[in-house]
């Protein structure tokens, strides 16, 4: 399976996505845009039970061309097989108030970006006949949709995500512990969050997932402004999640702030690496192919 896209479709650009209405539309465009750029199609099954034919498309694996049909109809068709998979993808989407932040240069809020990523992954997983589950959480679990590979699962997931209203603080540690106990079957746990919480407690929660032998991928979603701190003028920063407000001159504080952020990222990254957790920092102005590529890479690793 290919692991990188040679070109990036404009549909993966967050600025383009920001002009699209509806999470389903966004998810379909993301996945199709991503797939169109792959050298090989990811729509291939992993069982030997034939399911149907599909017309050849550039990039498809020639091993699955049905030459008999070609001989009869002079057209290329691919043989599709019933997939037999035991893959379950748990999508954990942070819906706390801090995810609502959208910086001055960002096309989407962190939550919107995370929703797009989650929807795209769900779309991709479901099209590969795998099961997908969704958990939205802030300081407690808000919604939990059990894993299913049913075609209707996607609509349900999208509806839940679209109806999400961020309002509360993040409390990842206890929630991860709780979910680790709830997820009975092993799977890929995809966490989409800004992780603005106690790092030690969060890492303890992640450790619990690993203890239950889940594969964990963390998409650490951050707004560009939260990394670059581009403010020039005296600003009153009104803290989300009830952290008060403060007036300061950002230019004099930029270096110190960036040092604090990098220190935080380093702690998280180091903690994840220690637990063999795939960790990826995602800026909301980045194309979404990085998310899909990272996911597919993890999935491939698991299938092997």
């Amino acid at each position: 399976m290919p692991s990188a896209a040679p070109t990036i479709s404009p549909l993966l650009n967050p600025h383009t996505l920001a002009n699209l209405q509806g999470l389903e539309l966004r998810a379909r465009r993301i996945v199709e845009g991503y797939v169109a750029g792959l050298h090989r199609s990811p729509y291939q099954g992993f069982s030997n039970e034939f399911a149907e034919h599909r017309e050849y498309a550039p990039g498809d694996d020639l091993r699955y061309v049905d030459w008999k049909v070609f001989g009869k109809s002079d057209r290329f068709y691919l043989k599709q097989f019933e997939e037999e998979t035991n893959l379950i993808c748990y999508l954990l989407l942070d819906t706390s108030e801090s995810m609502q932040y959208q910086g001055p240069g960002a096309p989407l809020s962190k939550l919107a970006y995370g929703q797009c990523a989650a929807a795209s992954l769900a779309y991709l997983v479901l099209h590969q006949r795998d099961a997908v589950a969704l958990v939205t959480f802030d300081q407690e679990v808000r919604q939990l949709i059990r894993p299913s590979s049913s075609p209707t699962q996607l609509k349900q997931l999208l509806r839940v995500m679209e109806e999400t209203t961020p309002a509360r603080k993040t409390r990842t540690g206890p929630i991860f512990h709780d979910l680790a106990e709830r997820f009975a079957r092993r799977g890929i746990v995809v966490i989409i969050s800004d992780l603005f919480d106690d790092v030690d407690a969060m890492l303890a929660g992640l450790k619990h997932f690993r203890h239950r032998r889940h594969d964990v991928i963390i998409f650490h979603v951050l707004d560009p402004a939260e990394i670059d701190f581009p403010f020039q003028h005296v600003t009153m920063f009104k803290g989300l999640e009830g952290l008060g407000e403060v007036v300061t001159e950002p230019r004099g504080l930029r270096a110190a702030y960036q040092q604090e952020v990098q220190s935080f990222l380093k702690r998280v990254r180091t903690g994840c690496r220690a637990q063999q957790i795939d960790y990826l920092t995602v800026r909301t102005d980045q194309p979404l192919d990085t998310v899909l590529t990272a996911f597919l890479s993890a999935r491939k690793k698991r299938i092997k």
Partner: protein
Amino acid sequence: MQGKKPCPLHPAPCILRQMDNHIYLLAFGFTNLAMLGWLAAAAAPLLIHLWSRHRFREAPWAAMQFLLAAMRKNARRMQLQQWLLLAVRTLIIVLVVLAVAEPYGEPLLAGGSSTPTHHVLVIDGSYSMAYRDEGPSRFERARQLAAAMVRLGRPADTFTVILMSKPARSILDRDVIDHAAVAAQIEALTQPHSGADLAGALTLVQEALSAKSENRDAPERHEVYFFTDLQRSTWAEQEDKVQSAIRNPQSEISTHDRISELSRRAPLNVIDVGQPQAANSAVTELSSPGAFTTVNRDIAFELALRHFGPDPRPQCAVELLVDGVPVGEQTVDLPAGGDAAVRFTHRFHSTGGHIVSVRAAGDGLSLDDVRSMIVPVREVVRVLCVAGREGAAKYVANALNPSQAGDSPIRPIVVSEGDLAELELSDFDCIFMCNVAQLISNEAERLRRYAENGGGVVFFLGDRVVPESYNSLADGDRPLLPASLSELVSRPQFGLDPLGYRHAIVAPFRGQERAGLLTTPVARYYRLDVSESRMDAQLAVALPNGDPFLVAAPLGRGRIAMVATDGSLASVDPATGEPWTAWPTWPSFLPIVRELLAYAASGQQHQWQQPVGTPLVGTLPVAPRAESPSSNLKMMRPDGEADAISIQTTPAGPEWSYAATDVGGIYSLRGLPGGALHDFAVNVDTVESDLAKADPQELPSELAVRDTWQRTADDGAHTQAAKAGWSASLLWAGLALLFLESFLAWQFGRGAI
């Protein structure tokens, strides 16, 4: 200053430094003092900083925990950086402003010794010291210098402080050892409005040098410092002898001799606080040419202005104020060093005393820009004509009111000499005694008191006059009459000698030879003898043979005039059967009587316009009871203070006096019976208005003059170069700070606050 308009410098603060057992008195200041106002701009960086702190943007923020942590760790550093930047920016502005103001500094005086010294500080208190040309006045600067010298004196030093006003007075003697108290006393000195009594000040200096201190450890070494503007009228025009009138009336020595004598006992230093070539204008005179002021008539006021300065002063505005309300304004061109006259007219509509002031446009010395007078406005002028016989006052009364009209401003009242004792004389503005035989002592005393309080009395003689009685009034300590009567002369003569029209009574006849004065017939008269001791008596008119005809003299604040012959046709020469004189029918009689009235009554106004330093005196009605009639009398001063009035009982009745007329302005007497007010205008003596400085060559060589205003060309060039050096250094420092500010702002991560 060479190559620059004179007097750009301004009085400046001074400092004293004590180094190497020597006292260095330093003067520093700024050429462009007004530029220092821009120092307020130094607050701009701080204000901009505070303003920007209150004009912030708002932004929601998710990563608050990192921001708070960064702020917690860097709060002190950021605050220090902010204050450092603000300090640098403020200093840049301060340095640039100081450079533009062109600072200068130089030693005023370097003297003293390691031994304790008794310093005699003489501060010029004449009103020319009130001159200011942006910045403190000369007096304030002198005060500042003297106080600084006291504050930084050695602990064992002692100080005597003398104020050279008129009269000079000692402020502190050397036994006050608390330097802070001495300095505070000096700083509390107020500017007098009088002249400078150099002779009196020198006497006080001599006494201070001679006085033995109560403190046995008091220093024996003395130094004298004069803080003065070196005005010519004070220092160079002392041609008269100096007399220490009180302590040694017999000794008469010159100012130069006195200074030489003092210099043998102590070094004499003069600290010049006056600016060179300072110009000034003054109102030197305010008067009303009319004899009397009555309601609803146009009254003229004449004032004279003098400009003391090398350049003319065009378009000087002059304002006339009545009771504080402006009623007229004119502009006048003042020639360089010359006079100009201005005439106003005003019509009063109410009786009583009115304050009439003129105010010239302000200059550096404002005290002499205002001059005031109190104008008593009457319904009519009441003149008492006392007839010694029937018809004796007829012609005088007719001359005063020829038409007998009721609306005449002059209202003569004719009484017989017997009625004189019954009348209240103060109800009249002038009294004509016409051929009154004699005056008993009580009547004479009443007339004397009347005249001393500003009243005017005119005596016409005649055949009823008893010479012995009159001559007794011409003798004594307070002679009522200016001349005694000698023999009776019968000698027909035509014509009077006006003696060059010098006297005010006949001055209007100048150029009016056909008015009859020169042909006035006089056949019989008393020869008047003016005693040589009567220096104040003036011969106004003489007969062709030289005998006095009209003699006038002041008495107190009033005027007395005496005519050698009769003022009527009633006195007849028994030898010829002809009247003593046909003058009452002559054309010159009416104007002479009018002028006699004007002269005699002028004291009524004069007493209400007096120079600074002249005591104010007046009489009070005799109290009907034993207690003091006016124990509540007080004087409201122009500076707002209220002073008690001293009352003395004289044989003629109670008399009040007030001597502390040390400032110019309007003084109001309160507490008079009936609640009446009595105002007095006190004006400065314009001798002090000429700010010309004494030529150093005219000053005694014993005086070591040190000033910041007059210097040689080399000194001027040196000072200019020094000033340029200071300014350039400040600008370079400002430029360096500008680069430093840019670097710091870049280093701290901000370009501007």
